[in-house]
């Protein structure tokens, strides 16, 4: 590929020269934006003299049209239909630690149901003293709790088990989001129904066309699970479970049943399809691990990344996100030489448990090749592993729980590739 530069700007033509061969999502955004001199000092910018839109123009505000490349994306070949599929959060374009509601990745198994809130009911049955049905308004009368949590699909990065496959931060790490949930703690809710002494497991069931169901052990139910009806200050988005969903902090996203319609308590796990045939981890001896709920510590460099090439020499801010289902992130190290040497990045608060944590590190780029990695450490002392360390223990047949360190190759033109080291 031709690395021709014009006035210090890598030309669009040069970067897109290979078109199909390029294989990076959002590729057209890889150049420095060209400026119109008429809008630059000392001229009066075109938006300055005239009145802009009034307060009635956008009853529900949307991002600037210049940000319309910042969207969820899906991988068409990954699934048989878009109704039972997944799309990915554009982590590379986000700042801070809060994911905007409209950019939270979606994973559903029977499409997004249109639940009518006045007809919404949550049933609690099984090993309880009183089988009860709650309306949405009933739920909102309980003491409420407001908590930030990350939600990560256990299959995040699953396509990368055997090698570097998808060339994007979004496609390899984007099955995670982080919002503030408002809801009622399950420990408060089940006080209303009472629990029989032998109520050891809870089946959570959705009201969607998949009737999504998962078993949750009672210890977790009473520890920090909640039924949420709001995210980031507004009602849950339909694709995130409107009007109510289960929140299972730090545990795999599949358990966070959306459009929740029923909780059943029992004395043994229910062995639903999603906890037997799916979300189990096949080892090389043919045996599979079951009930691998916790999401282990993980991190990713969001910029530079395949979607965020380096466009100019000089100083840059490396940016990334880290999280752990076992508690708080205590440290993130960054390497630019493929893991030989590491420097500790700056963590940006608030640093909360089971929550995305932002990190940054300034670096100087002078046109040399870089192998960029990040390595998270959580408060249990757990260190994010390499893919070789995971493969040595789990083999090559796993789909879920790939929390290994990724490597971005920055080549001499500033272009970035997802690569596998070995």
């Amino acid at each position: 590929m031709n690395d021709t530069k014009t006035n210090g700007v890598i030309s669009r033509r040069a970067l897109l020269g290979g078109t199909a061969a390029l294989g990076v999502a959002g590729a057209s955004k890889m150049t420095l934006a060209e400026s119109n001199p008429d809008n630059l000092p000392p001229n009066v910018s075109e938006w300055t003299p005239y009145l802009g839109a009034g307060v009635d123009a956008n009853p529900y505000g949307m991002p600037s049209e210049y940000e319309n490349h910042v969207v969820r994306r899906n991988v068409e070949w990954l699934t048989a239909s878009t109704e039972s599929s997944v799309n990915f959060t554009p982590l590379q374009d986000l700042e801070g630690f809060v994911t905007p509601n409209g950019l939270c990745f979606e994973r559903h198994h029977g499409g997004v149901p249109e639940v009518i809130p006045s007809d919404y009911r949550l049933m609690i049955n099984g090993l309880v003293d009183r089988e009860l049905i709650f309306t949405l308004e009933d739920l909102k009368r309980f003491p409420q709790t407001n908590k930030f949590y990350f939600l990560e699909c256990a299959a995040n990065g699953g396509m990368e088990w055997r090698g570097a496959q998808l060339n994007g931060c979004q496609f390899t790490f984007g099955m995670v989001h982080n919002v503030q949930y408002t809801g009622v703690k399950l420990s408060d809710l089940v006080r209303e129904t009472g629990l029989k002494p032998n109520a050891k497991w809870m089946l959570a069931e959705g009201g969607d066309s998949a009737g999504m169901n998962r078993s949750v052990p009672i210890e977790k139910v009473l520890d920090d699970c909640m039924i949420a009806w709001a995210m980031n200050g507004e009602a849950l988005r339909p694709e995130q479970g409107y009007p109510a969903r289960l929140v299972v902090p730090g545990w795999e996203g599949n358990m966070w049943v959306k459009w929740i319609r029923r909780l059943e308590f029992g004395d043994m796990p229910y062995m639903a399809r999603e906890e037997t045939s799916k979300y189990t981890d096949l080892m090389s001896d043919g045996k599979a691990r079951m009930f691998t709920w916790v999401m282990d510590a993980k991190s990713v460099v969001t910029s530079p990344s395949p979607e965020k090439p380096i466009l100019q020499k000089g100083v840059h801010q490396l940016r990334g996100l880290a999280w752990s289902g076992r508690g708080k992130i205590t440290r993130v190290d960054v390497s630019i030489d493929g893991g030989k040497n590491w420097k500790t990045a700056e963590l940006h608060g608030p640093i909360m448990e089971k929550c995305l944590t932002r990190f940054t590190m300034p670096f100087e780029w002078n046109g040399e090749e870089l192998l960029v990695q990040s390595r998270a450490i959580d408060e249990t002392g757990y260190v994010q592993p390499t893919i070789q360390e995971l493969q040595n223990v789990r083999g090559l047949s796993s789909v879920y729980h790939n929390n290994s360190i990724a490597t971005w190759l920055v080549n001499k033109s500033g272009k970035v590739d997802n690569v596998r080291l070995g």
Partner: protein
Amino acid sequence: MLDLVKYVSYATIGMALSVSVSQASERVFNLGALATPEEVAGWDIDVRPDGLGAPVGSGNAYDGEEVYLDRCAACHGDFGEGVDAWPVLAGGAGTLDSHDPVKTTGSYWPYASTMYDYIYRAMPFGEAQSLSHDETYQVVAYLLYMNDIIDDEYEVSHENIGSIEMPNQNGFVLPDPRPDVQITDANPCMSNCMVPTQIIGKARDIGVTPEGE
């Protein structure tokens, strides 16, 4: 008969959580309405490995073939081989420890109850809960028959759905052994680390990433 009680203790061992069992000071708000037996019966559709929840009914593979071909085969194929990217339902025996494991109801699913539970609640895709209970038992029977687990006259019913032995029933291990990777007590190597830095693969070369725009 399945001994599932052990899972309870496994899960308990696997977690060190502080749970406040005594919540006497917390109050009850008397919210919610008592659910009637009819209301519960309409929504309580799950079927457990011990057969709890299985609705009265039965079906065999001979009858199930017709239901399967009519309601399932368009996606899953006449022989459970899977059309396009839709799930394969039959075969795969002996492949779980190979480089290309084929996980089907026959080769991988540990409980026949899960087949009933899932098919009734979620299948056919986009027509959830449209099969009758007998039709669901028939389809379960046909899938078991396709996987050489029962013959085509065997009646699968609420009485035996919890005791049909599946080939991979003992193929799952508990509890979760993670963290399972050697870690260096939060003091990993910081300089001149001995790590492989040879590039052995590039996603760009695989060519399966969706294009931008």
